[in-house]
């Protein structure tokens, strides 16, 4: 029997260790697993590496992990959103490490990890500061940068609907980084608005097949 549903957010994030690399889906406020993030904050693990497009803003989501000083390093593309005061404060203090990369490279590195590739040549960033120290190559007159896969121990993702096999469907632009992160982590935990019966999801619009998901939890309304 395959049943990936877990009964609570606490159970959903059980086992995440201090020092873990944690991918967190979402873009801006869209497709963010806010409840899993809150559960992670209460869970007690620290020294985390957070891999997410943004670095949180105001006093919600990833910003609360930063505020509580649970994060050692942020891997992202755009840490400086409006209201990203906690990131800015810690950065100024030198209390947080930042690995910055172009957004397409970020997504593609995670896809490469999920797809078992050893790396890829991208034209993005060639000739810029973000390619410094990286292997480059000219192919047919175009400059490319070699980028390695980007993996994580855990991915916290957010979907609209999920079933007990872990199949996920998203709402509009809430998809964003969630499907690639689901592929790229050793353990993928999905927060969903609705758990539905097996067979209820249209097999043509399952954007994350269950094989990539380890745990599915319904929102509890905690944030």
């Amino acid at each position, binding site marked *: 029997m395959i049943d990936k549903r877990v009964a609570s957010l606490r159970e959903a994030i059980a086992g995440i260790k201090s020092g873990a690399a944690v991918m967190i889906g979402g873009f801006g406020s*869209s497709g963010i697993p806010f409840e899993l993030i809150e559960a992670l904050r209460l869970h007690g693990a620290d020294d985390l590496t957070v891999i997410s497009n943004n670095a949180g803003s105001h006093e919600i989501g990833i910003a609360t992990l930063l505020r509580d000083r649970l994060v050692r390093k942020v891997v992202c593309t755009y840490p400086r959103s409006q209201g990203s005061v906690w990131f800015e404060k810690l950065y100024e203090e030198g209390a947080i490490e930042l690995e910055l990369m172009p957004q397409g490279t970020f997504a593609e590195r995670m896809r490469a990890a999920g797809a078992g590739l050893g790396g890829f040549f991208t034209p*993005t960033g060639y000739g810029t500061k973000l390619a410094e120290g990286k292997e480059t190559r000219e192919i047919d007159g175009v400059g490319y940068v070699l980028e390695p896969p980007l993996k994580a121990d855990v991915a916290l993702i957010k979907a609209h609907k999920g079933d007990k096999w872990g199949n996920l469907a998203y709402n509009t632009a809430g998809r964003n980084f969630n499907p690639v992160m689901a592929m790229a982590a050793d353990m993928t935990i999905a927060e969903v608005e609705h758990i539905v019966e097996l067979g209820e999801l249209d097999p043509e619009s399952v954007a994350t097949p269950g094989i990539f998901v380890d745990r599915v939890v319904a929102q509890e309304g905690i944030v």
Partner: protein
Amino acid sequence: MTRLEPPQMAERLAQDIPDGSYVNLGIGMPVMVANYVPEGREVIYHSENGILGVGPTPEPGTEDPDLINAAKQYVTLIKGGCYFDTADSFAMMRGGHLDIAVLGGFQVSADGNLANWATDNEKYPPAVGGAMDLSVGAKTVYVLMRHTTKAGEPKILDACTYPLTGTGVVSRIYTDLAVLEITDEGPRVVELFGDNSFEDVQAVTGTRLLPPA
């Protein structure tokens, strides 16, 4: 000297978006371009967070919390639009499928290098987002920016002093003073606004310009 305001700058650029184009509008001034594309032209807007067919701002109360654009503003989807994940969205960008990207700029060099993601302030945390991917990926890159900084320093230069976004990527620059095209010989003025003279524009530019052909 004639200096267009941002809406007028956006309006001028919008005239050069052809019917049937797939277009990505960068955060800031570029998003204003959508308001001025002449009627009768069908343009499909892409947003890097996974939307093709971005529509106007929703009526208050009808916002879909997940449906935002790259600037994190609520948007809608037009009929015929669709959604995809970020990896697919950047494949679309990097793979040369978008016709036009309109980007803001800190600096543009004579050979079309763009700097628009970081200044030389080391203390301020850098942020790059999708700018680099767009600059190398779109078939045509238009930069929409003021001709000079607030302090009056030129932004069109022999070489950028700020960190680069992409090299040799810019096709045209739409400023508050003029429209310039990057050619193999350097930037050529293709249009002067109001009563601006070539010499006026050259005087506030940090590289030698070519006069209108």
